[in-house]
């Protein structure tokens, strides 16, 4: 799964949905892989406005990408900064989580990721 996916997921436990701590989930002991994708500035421009940037900064820093600024770049800033463009391309479009866990900060449940597929089925006591 792409790292970007974490921006669209939250804890599957019903009681957690209303808690701000259930998003984003926190990667733990994750192995990452990079799948090469041809440069695509238009895709990047159109993904950025729908991203929760604060959550992305949290996810990225937890996975060791600490170069993100506190606020999202404008298209003009991005076009004028080749390094930022490359970094965001790598982070958002190419980086995949292959193994590890995603942890809810509200209930502590860990969702396992195996071979790039996360398991969000809950054990009986959490359904």
């Amino acid at each position, binding site marked *: 799964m792409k790292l*970007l996916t974490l921006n669209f997921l939250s804890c599957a436990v019903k009681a957690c949905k209303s808690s701000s701590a259930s998003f984003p989930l926190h990667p733990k002991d994750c192995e990452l892989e990079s799948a090469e994708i041809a440069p695509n500035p238009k895709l990047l421009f159109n993904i950025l406005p729908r991203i929760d940037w604060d959550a992305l900064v949290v996810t990225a820093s937890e996975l060791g990408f600490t170069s993100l600024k506190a606020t999202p770049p404008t298209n003009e800033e991005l076009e004028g900064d080749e390094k930022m463009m490359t970094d965001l391309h790598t982070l958002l479009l190419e980086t995949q989580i292959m193994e590890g866990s995603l942890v809810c900060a509200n209930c502590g449940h860990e969702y396992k990721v195996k071979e*790039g*597929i996360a*398991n969000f089925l809950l054990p009986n006591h959490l359904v």
Partner: protein
Amino acid sequence: MLPTPSTSHVAFDRIYEPAEDSFLLLDTLSSPPEKAFLHERFNPPNTTDGNSSPSPLVVEIGTGSGVVLSFVHAHAEIIFGREDILTAGVDVNRYACEATSQTIIIAEQEQKREGKSHGLYLGNIVGDLTSPLREGMVDVLIFNPPYVPTPDLPALPQGEVKEGLPSFEDDSKFLELSYAGGADGMETTSRLLDALPAILSERGCAYLLLCAQNRPELVKDKMRGLGGQWKAETVGSSGKKGGWEKLQIIRIWREP
């Protein structure tokens, strides 16, 4: 006709094999009226800064072989009028999730070979309906549910995934989960419909497959009953000559 993604690699002893219902979804999503609807909805006239609207997120629930999601993913430019869509799938069956990823890869390679575009696939998640998703994110939701009326609803698999290949009993259970819908074939679909208003974005819409015994008219009325801006219409159908499995696709959306 747009080409159907290849699923010859899929193990159909534990994953639902593309059938009439799958193909009705493909035909409906690529029909001229639905293309027109999706083009208009996701390509609003340029705003003042000249940028496109944000990339739509397309999520299929119950991807099975992945034939429907891969079709939309590969033919995004024709169906949506833009290639920059994000796609993701959810299925209770881990093997279906693996199969879908593979089907997507093959469909992407096919597009590339022909010099054509495709969307950005985020991945597949093992989960129960929309429960892994954050609210308000999904722009297009596609669901070919377990719609066959059955005396009982099979239990969902539990948290941990077993090691090794599934047994014959496991396989039967996975296949049963793909079609058995409980009372009126609606028990699983009803849960999805209840979650829909929270899951869809402002511009979101859903494509849902139903059979005659699911009482599609009641389903549409229920969704319209959510409020004045909610719409529900039949946008595709097959098996008009009769028979118990007359199928239709309904589209559910909000008018701004």
